């Protein structure tokens, strides 16, 4: 859509980039707002409740009210925290979450940056968030927070490995790290969920763990650690951590759609009159729903089980997947 990134620098270009970034931020915020609403409704229905239904028609303004409440709260910085780190930790956690959105292609024409190493960019940036979480836990000077922070480091470092390795099968098949080219390869052939089913399952599980969501929500296990790494945070700094979590849901579900479910590609040829963006969002919503569904169903795993599962099951499986894909590619 924009070739500005490759053009020489000018103030007008910078202004355009800032405006576009603000627009993306707006879209993401609206998504987060309604993802939270959707989650609360879905889980409510699964749990014989109604979910939010008071603020606005069908409770549609509930999250807006919640966010507004968080924003007008006093910004509490506890006395014994490491002040500088405590203040910037939510920003460090949030910025990469927002930055990775840029490389996702939503349809043939709607994308923000056409980066040739899109996948690498995603993997590299998303692991910076963990620094913010660890800093938040450390700077809080709270025992529960530091335990939550340590847990999340252990968890994210372990699950990053199978997550990135499950990318490799797709990369081998397309020969490109560019997300648009990955979708185009699927448009010509079949969706990668078929030849890369093992990779898809590994991605689904490891992605869930990366998102710190049930059954892998150990860093914020409220039953042991009260709230984990953000126990001392309140007001809009707390909102930033929550925002990070939901933006990652957005990013992870988008990436999964692009890599395994054919992105904006219609499932059948006679359905191609429906715009690609609609297909993208349908697939995307299915994956988001899956995450909420799992949250309503499963208990939480224990730290040692979590690590054992990553290193003993997921990583060997991911390696096997890479090897099989390579073999398949060479032989046929």
């Amino acid at each position, binding site marked *: 859509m924009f070739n500005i990134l490759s053009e020489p620098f000018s103030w007008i270009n910078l202004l355009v980039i800032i405006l576009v970034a603000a627009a993306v931020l707006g879209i993401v915020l609206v998504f987060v707002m309604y993802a939270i609403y959707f989650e609360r409704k879905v*889980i409510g229905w*699964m*749990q*014989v*409740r109604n979910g939010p239904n008071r603020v606005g028609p069908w409770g549609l303004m509930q999250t807006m009210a919640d966010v507004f409440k968080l924003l007008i709260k006093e910004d509490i910085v506890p006395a014994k925290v490491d002040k500088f780190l405590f203040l910037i930790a939510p920003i460090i956690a949030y910025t990469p979450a927002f930055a990775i959105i840029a490389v996702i292609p939503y349809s043939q024409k709607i994308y923000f940056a056409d980066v040739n190493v899109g996948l690498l960019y995603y993997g590299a940036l998303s692991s910076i968030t963990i620094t913010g979480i660890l800093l938040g836990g450390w700077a809080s000077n709270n*025992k*529960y927070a530091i*335990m939550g922070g340590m847990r999340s480091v252990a968890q994210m470092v372990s699950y990053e490995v199978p997550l990135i390795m499950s990318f490799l099968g797709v990369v081998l098949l397309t020969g490109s790290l560019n997300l648009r080219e990955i979708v185009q390869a699927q448009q010509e052939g079949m969706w990668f969920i078929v030849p890369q089913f093992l990779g898809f399952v590994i991605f689904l599980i490891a992605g869930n763990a990366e998102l710190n969501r*049930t*059954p892998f*929500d*150990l860093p914020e*296990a*409220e*039953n*042991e*650690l*009260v709230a984990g790494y953000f126990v001392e945070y309140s007001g809009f700094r707390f909102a930033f951590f929550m925002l990070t979590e939901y933006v990652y849901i957005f990013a992870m579900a988008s990436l999964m759609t692009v890599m395994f479910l054919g992105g904006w590609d219609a499932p059948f040829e006679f359905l191609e009159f429906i715009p690609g963006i609609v297909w993208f969002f349908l697939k995307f919503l299915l994956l988001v729903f899956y995450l909420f569904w799992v*949250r*309503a*169903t*499963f*208990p*939480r*795993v*224990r*730290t*040692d*089980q979590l690590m054992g599962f990553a290193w003993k099951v997921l990583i060997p499986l991911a390696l096997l997947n890479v090897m099989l894909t390579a073999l398949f590619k060479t032989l046929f």
Partner: protein
Amino acid sequence: MALRTEEMLLNVGPQHPSTHGVFRLVVKVDGETIKEAIPVVGYLHRGTEKLAEDLTYTQIIPYTDRLDYLSSMLNNYALVQAVETLMGIQVPERAEFLRVIAMELNRIASHLVWWGTAILDLGATSPFIYAFRDREMIVNLLNELSGARLTFNYMRVGGVKWDAPKGWINKVSEFLPHMRKSLKEYHKLVTGNEIFLGRVKNIGVYDGETAKNYSLSGPTLRGSNVKYDIRKNQPYSIYERFDFDIPTGEDGDVYDRYMVRMKEMEQSIRILEQAVEQFPDQGEIMAKVPKIIKAPEGEVYTRMETSKGELGVHLVSKGKDKPYRLHLRRPSFINLQILPELLLGRSMADIPAILGAIDIVLGEVDA
């Protein structure tokens, strides 16, 4: 260079989401491994035993409601049973039936709360709501019977306060098949779940001998393969008329205690089905008791099986209308004593699993 590490002293509670009230646990952790755990109780101590010395017998009954507030009916019975034994009162049959029905309904309700919260402590949110949905039906039934939803204050020395309203027995018998169906649903939702099994199997293991040495009772004892239930071993009220089993576990881990409670709910349904069947159409609900209840001089210890274990009442009377001394053997308090031993060497994540399987109610621990 060796990394310098140190143990961390962590205060779990008294305000903590999984200690179910104001229970405090001081744990020394090395990383996430527990090196020492010291339970601190007493935040909810109200001196029930001392207060009882200044109250007439009827006035003590509401205080027993507030011991294990999840099974008030059973606590009511523990007190009136002691006074009735000391006074030698014969309770009318219809009253006994009403008591048994109320008690067994309350036992199911108490186990439901345990089921919901124990699974919630493992991180699954939905079972909690399902448990409370079904508990609500029981609470409504008991509300119709006694006029209260939690602190029933239903039983009196010599019988019960209110007769069953018209059609109430039918409502109970309609509820039972629903509860059976719900139990199946619970098993489907939770019991076979691989993550759940990973969290509860081989955790918090102790054998029957240890359990007896710690004087554990109720499901915490039966989970370790000790077949001991006061309703069978020393029947009180009219329990010998009913046909039911005592479920026991094999290995004495958290999973076995879980299964024992789940099976106990089924047995309670069995008792209720028989009780509803045999319920007498007519009859008194109160025995002939004097207006002012004065227990004769003497001493008595009676016990019963609550949802938590053996609730004993030691009553010393000097012939007045108030007890000279009332001691309560509270199962939650005694079952809790094994906690430090079970937590040793486990990880932080096992605290909610092990504590949940003991099933304490702080009102009873601190009395």
